[in-house]
Structure formats: structure tokens, C-alpha cells
């Protein structure tokens, strides 16, 4: 009973982080080992110490799993990231056209949609927000595609692509800041949110696949 209460106090975010990066077949063993040592440390040295230990171990474990994932198939990861980058590059430019096409759907090309200045402003805002939402959805979709292409290393591929997209944007931001002063330009928000959505897409695919893998394992155990 004491052990169970300790287990429920393990840092959930750290448990979730490790579960995202562990190979399916090792997931139970690695998470079980971490929890066993955590409950042992919590009973001997206190909860705060055990939680610090758990975080330290989780971060180092994830770093090792990322490293071994890259070493396991560097060309596969590189290929998938290149495809993802090209998808972002070519599909991203079509977004505005697609958003405008959706907004103009069913409207006659010679109709004037604007009667007042505020109506025209509202329409511009709609296009801007539509473009932003389109960006989010497209990045989520690309994150899912990239993760689907590499089984077992979904998060690795998604994070690498997110990094590849984010680094040039960050470099541009630094150059821009050096010239115009340090404040966050709106242009940086889109690549940053694109990167986050790609990682979320990878995470979704990973969670679905690990759930399917654990279902398969439990069925085969039952048989």
C-alpha cells in the first residue's frame, strides 16, 4: 500500500516524457525500473530527493535514447526529415491561396464583398487568422506523416524536423534583433508554432502506436 502511494507521486511529466521516447518493447522494463527505484528512494530518502532523482534519470535516459535512435538509423531519419522539410516548404506557400479559395467559395468573382472599411478589415483579419490556423493544421499533419514513416522513432523524427525548421527562423530573428533591437517579432511566432505542432503531431502518432502495441502484447500474453 505504501509502495502504491509512492508510485502515484512519481513526476507524471517525466514518466510521460520517457514513455514517448522508449522503444515499445522496452517501455515496460524501463518505466518499471525507474518506478521501482523511485519508490525505494522515496521510502529511504524522502519524496523531494526521489523526485529530483527521477527527473535527472529521465532526462539522461531520454538523451541516451535519442542518441541511440540516431545511431540506429541515421539515414532513415535524415531522409524523413528532408521529405518533411520539402512538404513544409512547398505546401506552406499554397496556404494563403487555399484559405482565400475557401473564403471565396461560392462567391461570384466579380462580386464586391466589401461595403465598408470595417468589413474589409474584418475580411483581412479572417484571412490572416485562417492562414495561421491553416499553418497549425498543416504542421500537425506533416508531423504525423513524418512520425508515421519511422516506426519506433516517431518523436526523434518529429523533433529533428522541428529543430531544422526552427533554427533558420531563430538565426533570422537574431540577425533582425541585432539590427532593430531585442523584441519578439510576429514573424517568429509562425515557425515556432509550426515546430511545436510538428512535435505534437509526432507525439499523437507515437501515443496511438504504443497503445496499439500494448494491446497486441496483452492479447498475445492472454493467449
Amino acid at each position, binding site marked *: 500500500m505504501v509502495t502504491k502511494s509512492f508510485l502515484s507521486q512519481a513526476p507524471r511529466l517525466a514518466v510521460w516524457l520517457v514513455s514517448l521516447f522508449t522503444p515499445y518493447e522496452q517501455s515496460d522494463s524501463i518505466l518499471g525500473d525507474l*518506478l521501482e527505484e523511485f*519508490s525505494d528512494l522515496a521510502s529511504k530518502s524522502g519524496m523531494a530527493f526521489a523526485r529530483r532523482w527521477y527527473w535527472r534519470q529521465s532526462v539522461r535516459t531520454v*538523451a541516451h535514447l535519442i542518441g*541511440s535512435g540516431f545511431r540506429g538509423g541515421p539515414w532513415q531519419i535524415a531522409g524523413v526529415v528532408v521529405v518533411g522539410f520539402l512538404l513544409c516548404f512547398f505546401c506552406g506557400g499554397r496556404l494563403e491561396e487555399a484559405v482565400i479559395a475557401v473564403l471565396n467559395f461560392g462567391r461570384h468573382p466579380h462580386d464586391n464583398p466589401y461595403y465598408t472599411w470595417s468589413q474589409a478589415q474584418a475580411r483581412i483579419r479572417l484571412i490572416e487568422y485562417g492562414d495561421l490556423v491553416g499553418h497549425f493544421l498543416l504542421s500537425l499533419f506533416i508531423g504525423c506523416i513524418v512520425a508515421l514513416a519511422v516506426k519506433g522513432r516517431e518523436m526523434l523524427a518529429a523533433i529533428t524536423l522541428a529543430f531544422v525548421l526552427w533554427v533558420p527562423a531563430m538565426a533570422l530573428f537574431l540577425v533582425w534583433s541585432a539590427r532593430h533591437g531585442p523584441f519578439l517579432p510576429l514573424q517568429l511566432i509562425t515557425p515556432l508554432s509550426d515546430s511545436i505542432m510538428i512535435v505534437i503531431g509526432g507525439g499523437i502518432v507515437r501515443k496511438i502506436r504504443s497503445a496499439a502495441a500494448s494491446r497486441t502484447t496483452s492479447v498475445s500474453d492472454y493467449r
Partner: protein
Amino acid sequence: MSNRDYLGEFEHIVVLALLCLGDRAYGVTVRQEIEARISREVSIGAIYATLDRLEAKGYVKSHLGDPTPERGGRSKRFFRVSAKGIAAVNRTHLALQSMTVGLDLVRSY
């Protein structure tokens, strides 16, 4: 795989820990054994990455134990060194011994 394959430094340490632990060798005990013997804190991820590599080479074999409540219902993965693994340890030891013949390591450093 040729008979000239030697174990890397950490592979060597992990295989020796497995040999020390015998039937009790799984992630937690291997990590604690290494920490107790050489005062080196290693992550569970590093242990599993190494054990996976050793298993792929055929030096180590593993099997799953029963799920236990202190692990949140998750099962342990036990490891043992195969005959091929023992041969690799011996080969590595011999190579190290051969390389240190004639060196007065304690006095020199």
C-alpha cells in the same frame, strides 16, 4: 562476426555486472551494481541501450519476468550472458592484458 570483436569500455562493465549478479540481473540491479562498484552514476537509458546492442550481437539473452506491484504492474526484463558473451569478455581481457605487459602503470602515472 569475427573472433576479433572486443567489448567497448561500457559494454565490458555491463557484462561484468551481469556476471556478478547472475539470475538477479535486470535494469535496477545492474545500475546499482555499477554504481556500488565503480561509483559511476549511469542512467537506465544507457544501461538498456548497451544491453540492446549486446543482445543484437548475441552476447546477452533476455526474458521477461512477472509483473510486480512495486513497479506499477510492469514486468522486469532479466538478462544473462551467453556463451558467446563470455568468450567476448575473455577475448577483451586477454587483449587488455597483452597490451599492458611491460607497462609499469602504477609507477608511471
